[in-house]
């Protein structure tokens, strides 16, 4: 059993998330994964952007950095380059990572820097009241798509894979135990890893698109889930709405900070850890 309390900042409770929000399920899955790996809390740096999902780090007792909208991966790149000893985990939303932050997302994947991105995809901008996101399905309503969205969506898994990620997976909060195993593998993977987590936003997505009941939304995620190898087995008509889960990419290739360390070594330098701050400070 995971001792969740050990990793939580309980004094920051209650959570800001709405009742029935899926984000808490992801939080618990992250903690189970971290606990199983046995990382110390000091070695983890959790970085997020802006959004409901991006409020996750505030509740986790590790080094936490709540940045600007879309920029978590950019900040995380600086953390990882300065301190390759830290395990860097980014928590982000579909809008945060694929709209405003899309550029950082693909470039971090291209570099194959050792950052684990956990992308909560709820098909909507939750925090700001339900505006359309790059993943809002065609025909679904949002506060800025009153007649239903007609924009094509990003396939986030394909995006990450195409950009060069080492590990790419998708799971839903309807299968929390499968989810924590994927998160564990993603963190352990050397290189850029992405787990797309399908999670319900009953408040801003469900209300407009039905079902609005959180339990039914989770059931819907479960019903539509199809493991990667089984897509051919389901009727063709159901394939379009299927949520294909599992591991899509798991390859070994050179990681960015290791390559950089190799360059430093070749040049005869030594990768110096930044100095710890000294006690007193002098006035310039």
């Amino acid at each position, binding site marked *: 059993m995971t001792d969740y309390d050990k990793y939580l900042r309980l004094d920051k409770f209650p959570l800001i998330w709405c009742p029935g929000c899926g984000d808490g399920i992801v939080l618990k899955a992250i903690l189970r994964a971290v606990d199983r790996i046995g990382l110390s809390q000091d070695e983890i740096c959790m*970085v997020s952007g802006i959004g409901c999902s991006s409020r996750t*780090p505030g509740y986790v007792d590790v080094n936490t950095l709540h940045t600007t909208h879309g920029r978590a991966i950019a900040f995380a790149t600086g953390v990882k380059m300065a301190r390759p000893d830290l395990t860097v985990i980014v928590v982000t939303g579909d809008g945060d990572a694929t709209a405003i932050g899309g550029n950082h997302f693909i470039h971090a994947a291209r570099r194959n820097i050792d950052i684990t991105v956990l992308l909560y995809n709820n098909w909507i901008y939750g925090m700001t009241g339900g505006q359309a996101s790059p993943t809002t399905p065609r025909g679904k309503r949002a506060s800025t798509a009153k007649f239903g969205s007609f924009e094509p969506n990003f396939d986030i898994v394909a995006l990450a894979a195409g950009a060069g990620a080492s590990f790419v997976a998708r799971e839903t909060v309807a299968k929390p135990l499968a989810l924590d195993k994927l998160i564990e593998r993603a963190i352990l993977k050397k290189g850029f890893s992405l787990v797309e987590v399908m999670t319900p936003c009953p408040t801003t997505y469900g209300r407009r698109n039905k079902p609005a009941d959180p339990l039914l939304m989770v059931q819907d995620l479960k019903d539509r889930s199809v493991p990667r190898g089984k897509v051919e087995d389901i009727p063709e008509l159901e394939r379009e709405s299927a949520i294909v889960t599992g591991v899509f990419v798991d390859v070994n290739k050179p990681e960015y900070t290791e390559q950089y360390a190799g360059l430093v070594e070749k040049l005869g330098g030594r990768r110096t850890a930044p100095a710890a701050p000294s006690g007193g*400070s002098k006035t310039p």
Partner: protein
Amino acid sequence: MSDTAAAGTRTQVLSGNEACALGAMAAGLTFYGGYPITPSSEIAEDLSELLPKAGGAFIQMEDEIAAMGAIIGASLAGAKAMTATSGPGFSLKQENIGFACMAEVPCVVVNVQRGGPSTGLPTMPAQGDVQQARWGTHGDHAIIALAPYSVAETFDLTVRAFNLAETFRTPVILLLDEIIGHVNEKVRLPEKVEIVERKGPDAPPGKYLPYRHTEDGVPPMAVYGRDGYRFHVTGLAHDQTGFPTNNPKEIDLLNRRLVWKIERRRDEIVEVVRERCDDAEILVFAYGSVARAAHQAIREAREAGIAAGLLRPRTLWPFPDREVRELAERVRTIVVPEMNLGQMAHEVEWAARGACPVVPFGRVDGLPVSPAQILHRIREAARASGREARP
């Protein structure tokens, strides 16, 4: 221009951009994140070689927003971090510069100014970003900005920018312009420079408050995950623990402290150079490369019998208001030549508070302000105040 970098060992010819890169290394730079843009790119190019050789980290990011984010992340992880850019990139960095102000993350942002607005004049000098340096990011905040006028001074002020950033837990902006960035001058770099490290935590982990309202206004800063310190950093309004708050009292305290911690110690930050100001009747206020022309102009004015002096701020923000005011009370006119349409002249006028007329002179055609142009304004000012040089 004369050497201001303290007497050093070896004389070498450097551009301002090269001196900036060397100054950063001397100050202890361990992380650079940037995106190429003229006329700043040489800084990144030099550091892409110097940093890995010294064991530091260099990365070319995908854009300037990412570069600004990366240096903030690196600084929180314990690095001394810098980015360099020019106008369009400076605009892109603004949101995250505000984050660094709010979250109190030491870092240095170099802006080698070129003509604007928009893509403007990529290879030509300007000083059009001096107000953006002050107010470019949204919300109330204080900022420190320095502007060197020579290659040697670029080295010195780059070191100083790092030291001020670490002392005050704040981003510091170093405003070069295309002329300073690209001019080659003989300099002697010092063998050693004084380096300031950030104030470490003053309480054991668990008791440590990353945003404590200390007496000097600057909270002690731990390094992520080092020696058992774990803490939260956010751009949201936060209390002393670093976590978001809606408490009006806490928010008020934070916002005021962010300004106060810098403004109250402005005497430590503000540096001006006065040339022949003691008996000056016409004062020229000029900074950056324009101060080079002003230096020449006041000499020529003196030769023509006009008592001209130069007030040359090395610190633009906080603005040297007291230094201006003090001279405004003694001189007849202040001439403010700039490569913009009066951005600092407004500040000078405000600081002078009517004690004397302030005459702006702006040039925005991509060409440098010449000594002759400044001399012409000095002569006009002298004539207007009845102090015309005897024929």
